[in-house]
């Protein structure tokens, strides 16, 4: 692995994001839309609570028998004519994909959005191998032109306003057209990418589900780009995490109901496709080679190290849309492939806790993410687990450790705690002007950005005692 390039700290990235007014507008537009559409879809579905439990149990069942289902999937996929490859990690998976492309003599590759592809660094690996990569999902096309990483797992270009998209298309499209409306921008991208679909030698997609009893790979899209990516080229390559299995097509249906409503508020995406093997004799279109690369990439470690609940994740993005932190700072500030609550659970596993120790802390533990999760992943509990591990592995800073030691001592001596907190509220009120504290020693981290409300004159316990004394 290459050494990670020097990049700004988490605090610096958050600071930059908070200071960007356009970003806040862009985040609010898309996540606000997503939240209200999801709420409407759930309100119209009385069975949601039961379906959510079922979704959780289906995924737990698969994970509890993952070895069985992996072997069953492999057997059925091979029988359909697919070629199966196993990769222990991202670099190994990328190597395999590049090797298949080279063997096919591929110059141009189309790609349908896949978060696993981003996770394993496939865009970069293709570029490094000198293979032209054409992103076909509209959002991925936008961020490819901009040279940005994705900022959301469902809407990767969520951070771009329509004006910024128009500018990119004007600069990069061969025949951009007028670009006066979002409709015109979508038409411009359609026109630009049309011929690229048919010219590609290889099409690469991810997988939303791997169906064990048929060996099929399920993808969901609204644009139709996945099928245009995977049908015309001679070779179709799927990269999929090993946790994507479901027992059968019927089980996939429950998860599809949950996934799509949670992601966009629709009941089903426009295109739900089960890809099973290469072109059959007599078929008039379809690839002659169908490859599936099954990637571990830390998933077996998650299974072994107490993060099996996270393997249920179906990547709907609802936890991002409902996270008060994500909605302020957006996806890029997290500095990882997966942002938001699910990302803060996954990233320490994927990149190491020392490199991502700020992420489990970037959470208020308000529990919204768990509440909206369609497979009931206890995200706050998992984030707290990372915080405990930060503490036990000595990754917390000396200031935090000393501060907590002082707090612990006081908490174990209640009489002293009451006295000290009584002093503290009195001292704080000296600095208050008109109900707010503008500046105070030791509180610069707070007051630099905003005022601190003046606390009551007495602590809760003091007030409680005084009231109890009254007849």
């Amino acid at each position, binding site marked *: 692995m290459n050494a990670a390039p020097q990049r700004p700290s988490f605090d610096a990235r958050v600071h930059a994001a908070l200071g960007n007014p356009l970003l806040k507008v862009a985040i609010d*537009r*898309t996540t606000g839309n997503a939240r209200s559409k999801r709420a409407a879809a759930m309100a*119209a579905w*009385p*069975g*949601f609570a*039961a379906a959510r439990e*079922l979704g959780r*149990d289906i995924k737990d*069942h698969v994970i*509890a*028998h993952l*070895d*069985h289902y*992996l072997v069953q999937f492999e057997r059925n996929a091979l029988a359909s004519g697919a070629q199966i*490859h*196993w990769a*222990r990690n991202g670099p190994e998976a990328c190597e395999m994909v590049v090797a298949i492309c080279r063997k096919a003599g591929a110059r141009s590759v189309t790609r349908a959005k896949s978060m696993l592809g981003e996770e394993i660094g496939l865009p970069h690996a293709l570029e490094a191998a000198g293979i032209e990569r054409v992103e076909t999902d*509209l*959002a991925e096309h*936008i961020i490819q032109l901009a040279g940005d990483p994705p900022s959301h797992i469902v809407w990767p*270009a969520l951070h771009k306003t*329509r004006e910024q998209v128009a500018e990119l298309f004007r600069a990069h499209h061969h025949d951009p057209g007028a670009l006066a409306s*979002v409709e015109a921008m*979508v038409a411009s991208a359609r026109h630009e*990418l049309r011929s690229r679909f048919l010219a590609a030698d290889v099409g690469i997609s991810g997988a939303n589900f791997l169906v064990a009893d048929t060996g099929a790979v399920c993808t969901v899209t*609204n*644009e*139709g*780009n996945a*099928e*245009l990516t995977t*049908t015309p080229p001679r070779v179709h390559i799927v990269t999929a995490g090993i946790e994507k299995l479901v*027992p*059968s097509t019927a*089980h996939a*249906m*429950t998860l*599809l*109901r949950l996934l799509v409503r949670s992601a*966009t508020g629709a*009941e*089903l995406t*426009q*295109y*739900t*496709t*089960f*890809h*099973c093997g290469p072109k*059959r004799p007599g*078929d*008039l*279109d*379809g690839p002659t080679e169908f490859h599936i690369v*099954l990637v*571990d990439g830390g998933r*077996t470690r998650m*299974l*072994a190290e107490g993060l099996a609940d996270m393997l249920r994740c179906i990547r709907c993005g609802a936890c991002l849309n409902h996270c008060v932190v994500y909605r302020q700072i957006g996806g890029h500030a997290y500095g990882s492939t997966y942002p938001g609550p699910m990302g803060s659970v996954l990233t320490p596993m994927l990149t190491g806790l020392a490199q991502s120790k700020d992420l489990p802390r970037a959470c208020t533990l308000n529990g919204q993410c768990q509440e909206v999760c369609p497979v009931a992943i206890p995200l706050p509990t998992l984030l707290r687990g990372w915080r405990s591990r930060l503490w036990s592995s000595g990754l917390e800073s000396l200031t935090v450790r000393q501060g907590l030691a002082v707090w612990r001592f006081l908490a174990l001596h209640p009489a002293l705690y009451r006295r000290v907190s009584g002093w503290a509220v009195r001292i704080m009120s000296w600095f208050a002007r008109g109900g707010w504290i503008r500046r105070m020693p030791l509180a610069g981290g707070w007051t630099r950005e905003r005022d601190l409300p003046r606390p009551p004159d007495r602590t809760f316990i003091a007030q409680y005692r005084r009231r109890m004394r009254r007849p």
Partner: protein
Amino acid sequence: MSDARSTILSAVSSALERRRGGSPAAEEATIAAEAERLRARADATRPDRLRGGPETAFLERLVSAAVAASAERVATLAEFPAAVRRYLTAKGLASSVAMQPHPDLLALDWPQIETHGQIHIDEPVAVGLALGAIAETGTLVFHSGPTSPTLFAFLPAHHIVAIEARRIWSWLEDYADAIAGRAQPRNVNLITGPSGTTDIEGTLVRGAHGPGWLHVVLVGSADAQQSSNN
């Protein structure tokens, strides 16, 4: 890369063994029985959509704002070409269409319409016959094959599709059960409305890469046969 395969599978097995506290893995039959119990639980969770029967539910869902297809009914497949012609006239489209090479469509008479069997990258109109439909979600089902190439559903600007009423399944699981244990086609395409995207500021725009318009012609009525028996 069989090395990676055995590494991954043994890592999975040893992690699972630790989770089970060393007890042996479940037998295949036990796993299958558990999966079947999970499958059976789905029926109670499905959205209540089927009032008025599958045909009514399918058409209502199809033309709802969320799916945004258009639809009409005809009595027999022989009336399909006239429905296509009406659609072309209403939309001001040229009378040249790509025809999905399905024998039932090829057997029809197509007066005043020029049909061709090849589909062009910027094809204005394609005419097709779906294998089936799902009422719950307003979904058309296509299986790829010699009489149903995949690209006919993805390249045209307008996709006009005939579907026979007797081929409507009520729920997503009904379709899944119907194909269970059978040979799978290369592609199963479940199509729910015309293509769309919300990738720019969450604004919905139709006609992203796939068709911008989907028109469904429901042929015959299985519900009507039942009610005429009353």
